[in-house]
């Protein structure tokens, strides 16, 4: 027989605040809250006293004032008469640009190196291990400086391309590598080019629709439609036909040496290239390790089982190995993307006008609004980071192993 003892009915005593687990948690939380409030109050009163002593105040008025400095790379309209806010927007767009470019190339580098690290070729394996170890163990800041130095000190000046027997020539007649940056041909949008682009966008949607339809057909009826060639055809043919129907509205503008510099085409400045390349090759080494770990995490039995079911090697990879490996690869990959975005703030070293260099650099120094600038800067990065981690959580929940 079990006898249930009554729960203690003793009335509340102050000593229970420490000894009884029911009340102790409340005690600790009250203490924590009190400490927090005290800390905030202490720091806040110090801040107020210091600001009063320095004759400063917190105000975001300066954002509307003219910035008064030039920015070498602007993707949106900007002059030195534009406001500080506009300069910050230029910086934000530049940050996003270099982060996006570096994410794409870092993924390419990382996947190639990660797959090659598992190659059965001894030499290639060792070379890739060397790449990963060297780039992971040396600060990205040094890599940015080294690549920036290569861009500015080792590349020829535009004047080297001058004359009948120039010291340097343009690659393929259209790419010029100079110490002011790389010049590449840029597109020229003629009348009707919008229609061509719209056709292209429609074709991309068409490809997805076709693949969905083919998969559905496969699951419903077991009929297997060819995937690769129809996709390529849907993607390219309508656009090419439309391009010629509209009378070739999109042309290329080649860079050419005029005066002291190249004109025409697109100039990719040396700072952007240094930052882009350094971030992608540095982060690529980390991604390579993720990719390797992800592929190794799929046990051999999985691919053997798939082969035993009669799947061809391509399908084994696509349907069995990759979905499982991606579950391991994607979360660290996304946090690497986050690292790229945060490391892009090192742009200030090479004079690339990202948000840290405009808002946190020149604007801060010119207006002296240190607190406001740094707070806005942190807010921007915080929004980006939290946004990316939200995407990651959604992905993690979607691919979580459904366990009971």
């Amino acid at each position, binding site marked *: 027989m079990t006898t249930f003892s009554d729960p203690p009915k003793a009335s509340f005593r102050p000593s229970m605040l*420490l000894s009884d687990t029911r009340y102790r*948690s409340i005690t600790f939380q009250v203490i924590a809250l009190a400490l927090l409030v005290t800390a905030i109050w202490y720091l806040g009163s*110090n801040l107020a006293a210091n600001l009063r002593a320095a004759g400063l105040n917190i105000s975001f008025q300066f954002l509307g004032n003219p910035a008064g400095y030039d920015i070498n790379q602007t993707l949106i309209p900007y002059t030195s008469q534009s406001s500080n806010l506009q300069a910050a927007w230029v910086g934000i767009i530049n940050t996003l640009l270099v982060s996006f470019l570096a994410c794409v190339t870092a993924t390419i580098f990382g996947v190639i190196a990660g797959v090659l690290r598992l190659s059965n070729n*001894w030499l290639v394996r060792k070379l890739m291990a060397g790449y990963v170890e*060297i780039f992971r*163990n040396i600060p990205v*800041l040094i890599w940015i400086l080294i690549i920036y130095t290569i861009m500015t000190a080792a590349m020829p000046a535009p004047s080297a391309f001058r004359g009948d027997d120039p010291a340097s020539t343009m690659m393929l007649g259209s790419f010029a590598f100079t110490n002011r940056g790389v010049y590449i041909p840029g597109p020229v949008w003629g009348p009707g080019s919008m229609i061509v682009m719209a056709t292209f966008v429609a074709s991309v949607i068409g490809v997805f629709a076709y693949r969905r339809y083919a998969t559905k057909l496969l699951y419903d009826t077991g009929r297997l439609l060819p995937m690769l060639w129809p996709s390529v055809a849907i993607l390219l043919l309508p656009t090419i036909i439309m391009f010629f129907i509209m009378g070739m509205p999109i042309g290329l503008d080649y860079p050419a040496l005029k005066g002291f510099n190249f004109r025409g085409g697109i100039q990719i400045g040396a700072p952007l290239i240094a930052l882009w390349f350094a971030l992608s090759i540095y982060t690529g080494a980390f991604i390579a390790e993720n990719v390797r770990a992800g592929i190794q995490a799929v046990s051999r039995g999985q691919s053997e089982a798939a082969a035993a079911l009669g799947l061809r090697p391509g399908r084994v990879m696509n349907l069995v190995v990759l979905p499982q490996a991606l579950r391991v690869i994607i979360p660290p990959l996304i946090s690497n993307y986050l690292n790229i975005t945060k490391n892009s703030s*090192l742009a200030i070293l090479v004079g690339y006008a990202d948000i840290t260099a405009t808002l946190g650099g020149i604007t801060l120094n010119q207006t002296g609004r240190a607190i406001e600038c740094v707070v806005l800067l942190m807010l921007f990065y915080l929004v980006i980071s939290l946004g990316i981690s939200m995407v990651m959580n959604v992905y993690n929940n979607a691919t979580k192993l459904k366990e009971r």
Partner: protein
Amino acid sequence: MSDTHAESIAFVRESSLPPAAPPDKVGGPLKWVKDNLFPTWANAILTLVALYFLYLLLAGSLPWLLNGVWSASSLSECREILDGASGACFSVLSERWHQLLFGFKYPSDQYWRPTLALVLLFLAAAPVLFIDLPRKMLLFTGLYPFLAFWLIWGGPIWGPIFALLGVVAGYIVYSRLVQKSFAMALAGGIVAAVIVWYVGGFIGEALRPASPLLEAIPSRDLGGFMLNMMLGITCVSLSLPIGIALALGRQSHLPIVKGICVVFIEFVRGVPLITLLFVANVMLAYFFPPGSGVDLFIRVVIMITMFSSAYIAEVIRGGLAALPKGQYEAADSLGLDYAQAMRLIILPQAMKISIPGIVNIAVGLFKDTTLVSVISLFDIIGMIRGPILASTDWNGVYWELFMFASLLFFIVCYGISQYSQWLERRLATDHR
């Protein structure tokens, strides 16, 4: 079976033949080369491409490296010696050696002090890193921070001594009370330490000698690779306990404590270190009492410690989450309270799981200490970009300097990661 043929076999060998050498095609170096470098056509092409790439790399760098000039006093002199040949000007390293290691303001007759501190660091770190060493050595590890502080900054010896006394007093109070309640012991220890520090401040002021044994050196005079090492070691060791506390806070069931920890961790992890350094540089001074004048080094240490403790907290949280629930339940069923369960059961295991992650964070943090050059502290990168490359003698010697800095970081970071792999094997208790 053997009986069946006992009469039909005339001869049975009683000892085994020595093994014959395998045929050439299934063993030896040729076989290895064929299997590992040229198994298929595609692989052979890959090998050739890799060999060509290696050739390009070595052909480009070897003459430059081997033909290096080690004894010239300026770049122009170095170019004269080279006389148009390809070669490195390593003389910048030999001439600016001390600047690269100690910065350009540290008094040159005092270089022995940071050097001694570095040597002692190995002695102090040894018992922490290698658990087979005698535990008595940990006493020296405990003394080391105060000793190193005194060696590097100099000044009156009473500061470090009273700091040490405070810690000792706190520890004594803690160990007396810890049997009764961990929380009370911790609070008592902190109070005792603060009292000793407070009193010691007055006594130290009274005892201040006219000329201290070691010349006082302000922290703005620190620089070079020494600064990177100091920031890295200080911030990692400070952020470990804070990281543990944050991780436990984030795991706890108390909503307010958990909320504070989550907001702190997510905020710090969401912003780049460089913005935190901006805070240290331009903003943090506003949060101290007016006129306190906390110097830049300490402000940077505060911000980097905040930064790394958030990351370490996340790693340890991963370790805590990876522990089977049974461990928590077992600790509960033994009747241990929260502090005992954490100290005796949960944390030792969780920390073991977290070692690779913590080492990764430490390596990353050590590399990130170069960022302080952005806020005009003269660490090794700051020295290279500032005083050395700006000087007329060495304007234009990029590669040698960057290579030297890379080499230093590579040695330290690679060494740490090799150590962590060794430790993982050493601590592996599962039977695999």
